[in-house]
């Protein structure tokens, strides 16, 4: 090997262009990447061990910490798995409220992506606006749950508290604001010539590879495959709501950006239906106290669609009040290793942040 030509650098963990606390070891010739190795584990807290030591309801308070930018799919997964194992059926109203929370968090997470993606090409104005707009959603969350980022709201058996008075009206206001703002994002970012020139033809994934290696979310949809857990295996009340699964052709960074942008529209559309259809009813099933709440010896696999793709939990009970095993399978696990290491070979150093942001890699869910 011509050793003099190679240079090995660490892209992260302390780097402005990395999505969270992780690092990619790059082997470069000039600025072209020859080999990429992902390193994670900077955020490993041993959630799966901590959950085993706690009762079900105690565990509920910590699962939302598994994925920081978008905690709600974790809560929904956890609640759904516990309900399935314990045989609890929740009311219609709870299902609608959960859909509302999940879609709001999807919208917030996509705003975060807008900021990251535009920051990766140096368009800082979009990032500033998107983060400020995301704060409007966080305000709604704060009103509803008491927390800006971690909500601990989707409780096994229901939701923690009912909607405050006039909440849906305020939600509608925020949605109307978003509808106006999204057009501005289109003008300055999605249709911007400099973004197109950077994003088209970069980080191309083929559809066959997607199916074979289990890629999910925007990576699949960016290849023109209509894949969405909300449609394929509907949970909560997604089968009663009208929405489309946006797709795009090309499989590159730009296709994934288009898909995400269209998903924001769909989220708003779903939320508007939720506002119209919100039924009355109980918000919590009567449950035994947490010391007596036991899970039968059984296991299950539940999944929801997060903003970055399928987010799944494996959960096993053993007849005691503690969970025997909970395994988190986030979308980033395969994306950060199999996919990213593939895509970066042959790319340039300038493309690393671009590609990482377009995959939406979120390290805390890889290492838990």
């Amino acid at each position, binding site marked *: 090997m011509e050793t003099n030509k190679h240079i090995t650098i660490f892209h992260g963990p302390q780097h402005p262009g990395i999505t969270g606390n992780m690092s990619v070891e790059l082997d470069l010739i000039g600025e072209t990447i020859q080999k990429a190795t992902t390193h994670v584990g900077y955020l490993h807290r041993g959630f*799966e061990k901590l959950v085993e030591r706690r009762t079900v309801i105690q565990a509920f308070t910590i699962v939302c910490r598994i994925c920081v930018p978008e905690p709600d799919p974790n809560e929904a997964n956890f609640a759904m798995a516990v309900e399935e194992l314990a045989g609890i059926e929740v009311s219609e109203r709870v299902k609608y409220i959960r859909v509302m929370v999940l879609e709001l968090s999807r919208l917030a997470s996509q705003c975060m992506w807008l900021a990251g993606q535009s920051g990766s090409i140096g368009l800082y104005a979009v990032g500033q606006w998107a983060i400020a707009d995301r704060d409007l959603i966080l305000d709604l969350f704060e009103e509803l749950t008491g927390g800006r980022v971690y909500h601990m709201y989707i409780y096994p058996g229901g939701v923690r508290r009912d909607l405050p008075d006039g909440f849906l009206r305020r939600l509608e206001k925020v949605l109307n604001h978003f509808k106006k703002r999204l057009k501005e994002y289109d003008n300055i970012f999605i249709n911007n010539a400099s973004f197109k020139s950077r994003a088209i033809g970069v980080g191309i994934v083929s559809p066959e590879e997607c199916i074979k*290696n289990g890629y999910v979310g925007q990576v699949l949809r960016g290849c023109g495959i209509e894949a969405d*857990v909300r449609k394929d295996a509907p949970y909560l009340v997604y089968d009663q709501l009208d929405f489309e699964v946006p797709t795009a052709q090309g499989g590159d960074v730009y296709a994934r950006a288009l898909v995400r942008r269209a998903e924001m529209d769909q989220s708003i559309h779903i939320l508007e239906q939720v506002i119209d259809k919100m039924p009355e009813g109980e918000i919590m099933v009567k449950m035994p106290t947490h010391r007596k709440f036991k899970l039968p010896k059984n*296991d299950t696999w539940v999944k929801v669609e997060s903003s970055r793709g399928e987010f*799944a939990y494996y959960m096993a009970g053993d007849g005691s009040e503690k969970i025997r*095993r909970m*395994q988190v399978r986030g979308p980033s696990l*395969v994306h950060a290793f199999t996919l990213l290491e593939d895509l970066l070979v042959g790319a340039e150093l300038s493309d690393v942040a671009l590609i990482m942001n377009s995959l939406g890699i979120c390290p805390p869910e890889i290492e838990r």
Partner: protein
Amino acid sequence: MFATIKNRFATTDIEVKREDLYKVVVQRDAIFELIFMLREQYDYQTLNAITCCDWIEEEHFAITYILTTSDRKQSFMVQTMIGREDAQIDSLTHTFEQAEIMERDLHEMYGIDFPGNQNLVELSLENWVHTPPLRREFDTLEFVNNNLSFREGRDGNMDVKKEMKRLRALKKAQKAAAKKAKEEASEVSDGN
């Protein structure tokens, strides 16, 4: 499909968990044959996850492979048991590229060996020398107490249980005193 699996793998243990989720438990030597059969004949193209559950009482690990069809509408949990001592099971990396990272995770967390996987290096931990952390015999609280120190707390920090006991006793004593005083008062009034 169920009939074929039952006949071929001599198992009766097929469970329909949900309409989109099946589960089967097979013998360890038959599991890869089953996975390949599901993949070739029934379109279970994607390996979603490999999970492991430690049943320390029954002396085995339950390894579950979760497969999904290419239209992502059906999932199949294929489970097998392997012994806890010197646990090992063949790698799936030759068929599914993404198995590498999942096996690496399980190797680190449970100490399971996957012959055939070339890249079983540390994933999340760094320089870990103790028992693999997710095995049941690893006590994380004991580890923390041995290796790390907590803050002592505020100067006026009190043991909550003790303090509650004390307050309750105090209240009781006060009540008793009040009662006594009342009785005495009534006695006095009676005396009058």
